[in-house]
């Protein structure tokens, strides 16, 4: 809690503060509670949900005899022709490529929208934003037809290109805002100091917009690492699956492998968690860059 110097703590203010914090703690618990179930299931023997654990405080599920068996199962998982190693590699290749492509394309695009005046600038910006106004699944079938024509179904490109394009609108918007917030004097000074436009962009502007680059990277990362719908359509053979597709294979019409499912969910969440921890301090700055003239 913070207090202003000289501010008096009255009963009313104390009650207000307690209620406010109680509400926030309750919200945090509600958010984290399902995760506790996933963690417990992942470490509880057997594939059945909610057996083999007890509740602490009547709420928190704790395994009676914790085990790492489900994690071993994940690493040994095979589905006719596809292994966990294949799926992890596919997810990594697609995600890393998407992140690199998104950053490589949205940096110059954001720069152009910020610094260059060209005919149709407003219309072009709007055209990037237009697809975001429709539900994402609407575009899956047309995308599939296009990629089928191009022979890119069941290839990495079949996912990398739509993921990259899908993150474009928001990413360009973020990067444009970031470049807008850097005074033009800086690129002009760099050019007078002997830099070409590209060097001014690369050595002056890009380092100053790193928080936004982090945000764009994270956005592209999340969009590709966790996507199920598009991957489900585009990647058709078991050895081309990404991790979310493999995860889905654990739910069959006759049986659901809850233990392995939960362990795999946790494994998939680790990179997300790590990336979030690394970029956390950049995120808020990146998302709000350019919103206030500094």
């Amino acid at each position: 809690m913070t207090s202003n110097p000289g501010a008096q703590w009255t009963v009313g203010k104390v009650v207000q503060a307690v209620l406010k914090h109680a509400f926030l703690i309750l919200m945090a618990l509600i958010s984290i509670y399902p995760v506790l179930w996933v963690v417990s299931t992942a470490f509880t023997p057997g594939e059945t949900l909610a057996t083999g654990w007890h509740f602490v405080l009547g709420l928190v599920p704790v395994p009676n005899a914790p085990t790492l068996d489900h994690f071993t199962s994940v690493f040994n998982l095979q589905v006719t022709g596809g292994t966990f190693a294949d799926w992890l590699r596919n997810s990594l290749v697609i995600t890393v490529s998407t992140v690199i492509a998104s950053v490589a394309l949205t940096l110059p695009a954001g720069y152009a929208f910020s610094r260059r005046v060209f005919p149709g600038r407003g219309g072009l910006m709007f055209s990037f934003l237009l697809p975001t106004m429709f539900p994402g699944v609407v575009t899956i079938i047309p995308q599939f037809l296009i990629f089928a024509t191009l022979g890119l179904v069941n290839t990495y490109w079949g996912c990398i290109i739509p993921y990259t394009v899908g993150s474009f609108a928001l990413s360009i918007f973020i990067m444009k805002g970031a470049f807008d917030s850097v005074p033009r004097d800086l690129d002009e000074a760099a050019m007078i100091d002997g830099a070409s436009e590209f060097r001014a962009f690369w050595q002056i502007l890009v380092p100053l917009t790193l928080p936004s680059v982090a945000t764009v990277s994270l956005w592209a990362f999340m969009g590709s690492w966790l996507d199920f719908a598009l991957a489900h359509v585009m990647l058709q053979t078991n050895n081309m699956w990404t991790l979310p597709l493999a995860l889905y294979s654990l739910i069959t019409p006759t049986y659901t492998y809850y233990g392995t499912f939960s362990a795999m969910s946790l494994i998939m969440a680790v990179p997300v968690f790590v990336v979030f921890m690394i970029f956390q301090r950049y995120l808020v700055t990146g998302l709000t860059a350019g919103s206030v003239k500094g």
Partner: protein
Amino acid sequence: MARVSIRDVNKVFKVSPVVKDLSLDIADGEFLVLLGPSGCGKSTTLRMVAGLEKPTSGDIYIGDTPVNNVHPKDRDVAMVFQSYALYPHMTVHDNLAFPLKMRGYSKEEIEKTVNRAADILEISDFLNRRPKELSGGQRQRVALGRAIVRNPKVFLMDEPLSNLDAKLRVQTRIELKNLQKKIGTTTIYVTHDQAEAMTLADRVAIMRQGMIQQVAPPTDIYAHPANKFVAGFIGSPAMNFIDGTIKTSDSGAVFQCEEFSFPVHPAVSRVIPNGSSKETTYGIRAEDIVVDTSQREGSVEVSVFGSEMMGSEQFVHGKSGKLTIVARTPMDFRASIGAGVWMNFTSANAHLFDTETEQALV
């Protein structure tokens, strides 16, 4: 070092002309100040020399080379921005080294040159700091350092002192002048502050609405303004203007306005043929008016409506009818608000301007 030549340059933004038919020659090693009110086109002119704006028509030369189509990086000019434009993610050392790196200097040369510039500007102690850790004055020095570090042909300065406090501004402008004399690099300096222009410039070019009004050394501009705008813009407080008619005769010249009339010094009235009269604007600076508490020959009475004590001197504001006049007096001059004082406008340093064209007649 190089001379800079601006020939018949026009700049139009969309449909608004910002610079009109501007021609100016800046000699090798000269310190030229572009002075004018906001929006007069002085910064645009500077940016065209830097290559940050392209002239709509006309030519710009640096040395003998036409530079209209030369990229800023290849013009060999250095610019100090009003905002300083220091690279926030680099240390002071790296800020100074950046222009040298861009020109392919070796590591040893960069170190030597950066240290020399830092010594000249006394910024050696904070070479490892970032701009945000510096005071305004220190940042300003770093910005200057980045300009002098690579010995460019021309310095371009866009109101570089305007973010400093008054005391530091005075100190820095003296240092800047000495530095420019020492280095001898041709400098074009933009400001709206006439005190900066008067103290720094070898010549001042006064601009208004995209056009040059007068180019001359500061003392000439002050003593012989080309027109009413220049006369009113230079000098603090601004020159007093009285609209009326000057009449000359064998017995001398008299200036007649709505409120009063007073004799005109022969050195001023000589431009009006004897025995004629002409509608003109009479201009006189505060220091050329003699103020008295009692009537003297040729003086006119005005009522005091304010005074400003400046320390060593005092400015007395007087009013007569619709006319307001400000005059300089010694600090011990006493005049209470509402009291009448007598002002004498008959000075050899007064000016006459054509009422229609506003051009100086004398």
